[in-house]
């Protein structure tokens, strides 16, 4: 029966790989803060939302990544919150949730923000990163240009998203949570099998999810449609008012992001691709022109 067991486990693996999951397997979430208050509020609401919907016992790691810019802040007469105040705020926000929110703080005194992010990635397996964009109030230090989202964010996209396969949530501005308008660019027919879980965490009861198809073949589009039908059917158990709509035509990432520049209230979602050689660069360039909050899934491994 050894051969049978081998064959059985191989088939189980293949079937499991395609199974639609109700929730993503997230254990460690890294929240990078740059002390822009309004976005910080939004981030706190966002993680509360994730926690409520997934009911997970994820560990939240807070990185106060702008401490290295303390001198510049003083010069600019910008008051930065001190660490004890932030700790108090987190405790107030998640009062009674201490066991669920295993909060760890990292402060950055000297090194660059991304250096600290990398340090954390080495210490613990991070499954999701939430980070404000543009990062910090100090655009000059971040060398933010027309072709860049700033050195920290560019590195997060290049290293965390593309190489470490970590989903990232780029927070541009404060927004109502849960989301009622989600715009998804489907760039690969083998879409994330935990997408249902992400939607479940993000959407309001009357949310509208609009799907834009990237350059896919007829067969791949059929597959995506079938996939979305299953998701819609499963989400109907949660809310009857939820809708999924397909946009006609096909959209490249740049084109999609240009369209989204007029949709600041939407949450933009797409997946990075490994098969495109310079996709990180393409993502950075595309995002320079739009102002929405963005959830980017890593390429399939």
């Amino acid at each position: 029966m050894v051969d049978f067991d081998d064959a059985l486990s191989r088939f189980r693996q293949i079937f499991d790989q395609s199974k639609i999951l109700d929730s993503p397997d997230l254990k460690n979430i890294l929240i990078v803060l740059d002390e822009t208050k309004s976005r910080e509020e939004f981030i706190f609401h966002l993680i509360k939302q994730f926690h409520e919907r997934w009911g997970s016992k994820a560990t939240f790691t807070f990185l106060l990544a702008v401490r290295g810019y303390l001198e510049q802040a003083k010069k600019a007469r910008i008051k930065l919150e001190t660490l004890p105040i932030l700790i108090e705020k987190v405790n107030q926000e998640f009062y009674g949730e201490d066991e669920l929110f295993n909060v760890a703080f990292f402060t950055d005194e000297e090194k660059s923000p991304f250096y600290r992010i990398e340090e954390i990635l080495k210490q613990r397996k991070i499954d999701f990163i939430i980070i404000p964009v543009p990062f910090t109030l100090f655009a000059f230090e971040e060398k933010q240009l027309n072709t860049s989202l700033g050195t920290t964010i560019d590195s997060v996209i290049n290293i965390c998203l593309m190489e470490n396969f970590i989903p990232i949530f780029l927070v541009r501005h404060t927004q109502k949570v849960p989301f009622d308008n989600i715009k998804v660019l489907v760039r690969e027919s083998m879409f994330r099998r935990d997408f249902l879980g992400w939607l479940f965490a993000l959407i309001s009861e009357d949310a509208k999810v609009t799907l834009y198809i990237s350059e896919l073949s007829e067969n791949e589009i059929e597959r995506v449609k079938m996939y979305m039908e299953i998701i819609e059917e499963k989400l109907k158990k949660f809310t009857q008012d939820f809708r999924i709509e397909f946009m006609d035509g096909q959209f490249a990432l740049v084109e999609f992001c240009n369209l989204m520049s007029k949709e600041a209230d939407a949450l933009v979602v797409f997946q990075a691709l490994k098969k495109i050689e310079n996709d990180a660069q393409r993502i950075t360039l595309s995002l320079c022109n739009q102002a929405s909050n963005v959830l980017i899934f890593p390429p399939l491994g």
Partner: protein
Amino acid sequence: MTAILELLIASFFILTLLLIIFERTHKTLAAMLGAGLSLLVAITPGSVSNGEALIPDIEHLLELIEIDLILVIIGITLMVGVARTTGIFDYITIFLLKKSGDNQYKLLIAFSLLTMLFSAFLDAYMAILLMGSITIVGCDALDINPKPFILAEAIFSNLGGTMTRIASPPNLIIGGHFDIDFITFLLLTAPFVLISAVFTIFIWGFLFRKDLSQGISSLSYNEVLLIDERTVIQDQNGFKIAALVMTFTIIGFAITSFLPFKLELGYVAMAGGFLMVGLVGSDVEKSLEKVEWSVVFFLIGLLIIVGIAERANLLDLLIFPVEALFKIDLLFGVLSLQWINAFASSALDNVPVASVMTVIMDSLLEHYPTLSFNSLLVAVVIGTNLGGNITPIGSASSVQALTILKRSDNLEARTTFIEFVKFGILVTLIHLIIGTFYLSFLWIFRI
């Protein structure tokens, strides 16, 4: 002296059969032990009445072992085992599941026929193993009971095993002994197998109507449709080469029937197996592990024991009662032989039954020149292969099927020995009745 040695050979023969029947030890070990002991006696001068040895030299020993049969098994198991590593069979099964998984009856037909084809042209052991595993996982995904499917696969594996000369060890023994070509064998058995397959599907549909009539939820089926069967392909080139080598090997088997010179099936099988290893198998050690060495040595051992027993004229005791049936009427004898074989194979391993049967057939053909060889052959092939469906211990496929169901997480799927016998007897009776009509047809029309 000769009488004592003959008595020893007879004792070893019976002891080996008993060990195989009662499974007190691994059947290969029993066959090898029996063969070793019998050989010790057979090489002793004086083991025949003229003072010579029964097996005086290696040439006489090699005559007992059907080398072609051994080469077919080594070649096919090597070819199929290495081809499996490319993901080709996983791809086919998932593809079929996606095409037929929206309806249980469709799925039953698709899986049963695929099991039959795999068994007929490739390897019955691989067929039940592969189909059993995809059935368990597929039924789990579709939220249906796997029992009707697994049991049907065991039956169809044995049906497929009846169809070609290379499909089962009994066919290899009988086909090899009488030197029947691949196409002639197929033409003689395929009509019976196809008619029986159609009947079996209908019977199965009726017996399991409660399970099979239950609908499959579109949600579950759509989730199965999302599986990308291409992900099982380990190596694109290897996949294509494996498909080509297997196709050409099967065509090669068929072509040997039309050649103006003699080309053994073992040669084709070995060519296919070696080509597969050379072109696809990256690891020679692992590739060689794919050969079913246990089956190979079981057959070698058994052929030696039966061959020595035959040379010592010990099998005459088995020939006389069978010949008595033929004395009544030749057609009656042929039909009886099918039924006797079936019941013998249900309790015994069908390989020794087939091996002994070749000796009986030789004797019958010698004593009854008007006896239709084709009818006799088909009677023995049907009986030996399908008798295994009566009990779960009657064939390797049935044993596998029952074990798979016993280990299933789905409580509805669990099947007892008695339950298997209930279905097995019914189906085998129907097959044997169809066989009776089919043999009569062959006899009457002198085919």
